[in-house]
């Protein structure tokens, strides 16, 4: 008796599981407007895409990114200052070179003039 009852219960359970699986895996057709909805959504995403510079600016000036702004400004200022200082140094150096050549020219000219005057005196004293 007991043996028969056990076999009957198992058959019932197996049938129920098969039915449940069949129900779960049954093919369901999408609604008629499903494809149109997906295509409309994809088209909408494409239309919202912004130019690269806007996206970069958005990333740089995003509230979280603004904390780097002082560091970025400092780097730009230091770089500009270095370039300006180097330019000034070149201008100053070229000016110093010109002044040096002018000084040497004047010195040489005055020494030559003095030498000529001495030579004049020597010539006259010989005469």
């Amino acid at each position, binding site marked *: 008796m007991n043996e028969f009852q056990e076999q009957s219960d198992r058959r019932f359970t197996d049938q129920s599981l098969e039915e449940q699986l069949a129900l779960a895996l049954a093919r369901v057709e999408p609604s008629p407007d499903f494809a149109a909805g997906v295509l409309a959504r994809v088209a909408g995403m494409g239309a919202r895409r912004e130019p690269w510079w806007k996206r970069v600016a958005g990333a740089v000036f995003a509230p979280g990114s603004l904390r780097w702004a002082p560091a970025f400004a400092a780097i730009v200022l230091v770089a500009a200052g270095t370039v300006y200082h180097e330019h000034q140094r070149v201008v100053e150096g070229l000016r110093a*070179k010109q002044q040096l050549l*002018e*000084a040497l020219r004047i*010195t*040489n*000219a005055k020494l030559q003039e*003095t030498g000529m*005057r001495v030579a004049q005196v020597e010539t006259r004293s010989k005469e």
Partner: protein
Amino acid sequence: MGLAVAACLAAPLWAAEDIHMPVNLDKLAERATETVDVTLDASMLQLASKFLSSQDADEAKAKNIVSRLRGVFVRSFEFDKDGQYAMSDVEALRAQLKSPQWTRIVGVRSVKGENSEVYLQRNGDQIEGLFVIAAEPRELTIVHIDGSIKPEELAELEGHMGIPHIGKNKTKGGGKSDDKAQKEEE
């Protein structure tokens, strides 16, 4: 007292050897039609030297000269008429060029008022400085080169780098009977 301190501060330092430019000399610039004012201390000479090429023969010579200098100072005034300065204006400078540190190697005086003086600062056999005072009726030039320099080295640069070639044989026929010259050589 305060005026004296102000005058001392206003007088630019010519060199470490305590040669100071008199304040009254700077005032000559107001009357001059042309002024040359060159003040190059050791750091400026070093900077100028960096812009002299070692590849160019003439610039390399100048670079070699400059490497031994501590300062180059020039004041030159040109006037449009006579009597715009007095020799007393340069007397303050001349008073600083005393022996034994400084030796006057050449002094030429003319009744026309063309006076030239060349002083050398010596340390043993080494020349440590050159001072030139060239005074003409309408021109006054003062040159101080602080450092080791030989006048012949400057002559080597003659005709190059904008330094004009001045003929050394121009003296012939230039006999001016009114010149009363005085020459002093060691």
